[in-house]
């Protein structure tokens, strides 16, 4: 079993101009699968926080339902299509409800799903997904930024299918995964060396050793949120979101 932690905080830029935060995270477990999803709504899209919320919810449900297929299927192209069709379908419903266009709901999408023995990773756009394997911190999927800093691929982009990155593997030796939006990656990912900050391993470890008994507001989550609210948020004007799945120690 993996412990989970996920959190998003509105960036200083949005706070200054009085706009809503656009990062969203979600966690779901069922059928022996645990899923963590994260999405960063596009700055230019007027309702992107609703799009981000929709894709993290739908992504969690989809990965629980289709984990076995994604883990074993030889046809990656079909998996990409299936993921996007499902996310697009959900976004179309949100668009009808809000009376907005598909593009108004643009966001990135990052997901990690784990079973007892296997994992599946899905990544569209920027942000970073990393993991600790055999004690070593590694990048699973780096940001997709095209040439310029303010360009990336979104779930709603015409080239989303070809830009969807899929990874899968055995969880043996894996002690945890970390997902982050581009705001968070400002202090947890080195753009020059394409490596993760040492803090990632500490954060994963903090989630791994957390007590498993149910309490309303666990102390370890308060401490983790404090790190995001202060250290990570101060390094950027963008929203910060993070998701961690850490194998219970």
């Amino acid at each position: 079993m993996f412990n989970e932690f996920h959190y998003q905080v509105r960036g200083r830029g949005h706070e200054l101009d009085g706009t809503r935060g656009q990062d969203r995270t979600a966690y779901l477990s069922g059928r022996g699968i645990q899923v963590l999803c994260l999405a960063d709504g596009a700055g230019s899209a007027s309702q992107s926080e609703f799009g981000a919320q929709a894709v993290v919810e739908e992504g969690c449900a989809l990965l629980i339902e289709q984990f076995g297929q994604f883990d074993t299927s030889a046809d990656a192209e079909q998996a990409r299509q299936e993921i996007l069709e499902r996310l697009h379908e959900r976004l179309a419903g949100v668009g009808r409800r809000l009376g907005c266009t598909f593009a108004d709901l643009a966001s990135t999408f990052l997901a990690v799903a784990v079973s007892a023995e296997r994992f599946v990773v899905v990544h569209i756009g920027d942000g970073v997904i990393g993991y600790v394997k055999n004690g070593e911190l590694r990048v699973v999927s780096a940001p997709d930024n095209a040439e310029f800093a303010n360009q990336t691929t979104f779930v709603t982009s015409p080239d989303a299918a070809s830009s969807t990155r899929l990874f899968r593997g055995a969880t043996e030796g894996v002690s945890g995964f970390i997902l982050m939006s581009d705001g968070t990656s400002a202090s947890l990912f080195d753009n020059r060396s394409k490596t993760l900050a040492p803090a990632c391993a500490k954060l994963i470890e903090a989630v791994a050793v957390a007590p498993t008994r149910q309490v309303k507001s666990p102390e370890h989550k308060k401490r983790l949120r404090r790190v995001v609210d202060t250290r990570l948020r101060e390094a950027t004007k963008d929203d910060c979101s993070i998701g961690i799945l850490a194998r219970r120690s």
Partner: protein
Amino acid sequence: MALAIGADDLIENPTPRVPVILCLDTSGSMMGDKIRELVRGVNLFYDAIDEDDDAHDAAEVSIVKFNSEASLIQDFSSVERLQRRDAIDATGGTALGEGVNLALDTLEKRKSVYSGAGVLYYQPWLVLMTDGQPNGSAVELERAVQRVTDLVAQKKLTVFPIGIGTDADMDVLAKFSPNRPPLRLRGLSFKEFFEWLSKSVSRVSRSTPGDTVKPDLEGLAGWAEL
């Protein structure tokens, strides 16, 4: 117990850069008030960037001047290292094509430096200012137009061709800007133009993925004749 995350555990990435290259006509016809106001405007541009929290860390400015030949008088630098100028000599012809080609070469080199160092950057801006008709090499001019329009078509460059005074060849400037007509500076309102430019650079430096930063056309009314 607090989670012990020290400074060494975190990364301090360089601020993504906004490269701005000014390609300025310093031919003989610019002599007098025009070149004085232009130099004053450039210095004000530096000051405005210096005072803006976002632009200060992001903007990198370079200057190419062209008269009978083209030369790089300011390589890309952050605002702290930009050299304020007292004057620029205005003399000779108007080798506009040579100037633009040198500006684009300088830009390509800078982009290579960014990429090699893992520094993210935004779409570069080229500001082209002239008060006359080009009289350098026709081949160089044609090559410059082609390079700029290709980059603009690929969304790899934002270009602002600006005519100074009534003698500026707006038809030639229009060739550099397929998507937007060139603008003619109202009188010698360089100050207003460079204030507008610094604000625009600041907007770009605050943008995040998905943001489409279009030129603030309302702001243009403050300095240009449309």
